């Protein structure tokens, strides 16, 4: 009985501790693309150019976001990223950095 009484507050504490991680949908994401003249798109909307910049990225109710880069004479890049992939990238490596391949 004593164990059971302890379990409920512990579970509540764990749930509370998880809340910020689970509910976070917005991230500040650094993106840099070479060439710097490349256009950068997040979820299909042009947000800037290749020069390194920090973007506010919000997943909202989506499980993934779509980040794209394109420049004349280069092969475009499209990445569909989950929240987990964004979190891992930010914590382990920092910015997203892409170098576009020149078209043959």
């Amino acid at each position, binding site marked *: 009985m004593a164990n059971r009484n302890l379990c409920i507050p512990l579970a509540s504490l764990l749930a509370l501790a998880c809340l910020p991680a689970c509910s976070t949908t917005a991230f500040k994401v650094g993106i840099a693309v070479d060439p710097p003249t490349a256009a950068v798109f997040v979820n299909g909307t042009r947000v800037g150019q290749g020069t390194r910049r920090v973007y506010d990225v919000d997943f909202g109710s989506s499980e993934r976001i*779509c980040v794209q880069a394109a420049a004349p004479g280069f092969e475009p890049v499209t990445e569909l990223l989950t929240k987990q992939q964004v979190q891992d990238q930010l914590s382990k490596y920092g910015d997203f950095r892409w170098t576009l391949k020149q078209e043959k």
Partner: protein
Amino acid sequence: MKITRNHSLLLTALLVSCAGVPTRTFQIDAIDVDESPVPCIVVLGDDWAGAAENNQYVNVGGDNSLALKVPFDRPEVDIVVAAVPVDPATGKPRIQPKSRTESSDATGFLADFRRVRLTDPERNLFILRRR
């Protein structure tokens, strides 16, 4: 009453049919690497004929996007966006390609492809590059 395996299967089928296939409407747009709109046909899975029949075109007759209703009968559905040649006189597609190769041969653009999920962002931009 004893529930047989057949009853269970029937019940499951009934439940699935009642729940229906979830659908989602995506906004589809297509540009090239210069950020210019590219007239394209938007194909669900491999249904090229259905795409033409349902008039699933983008940037044909002007710079616009396509509201595409996608049924998710599986967790991920393929969307192919392939360029179409447009007749300048009529503003309509000159041909209705039935494959990516046919589209590339007619336009010089490589088709773009994406595997979408029900929970993906609404707006989907496809960036086509030249062959």
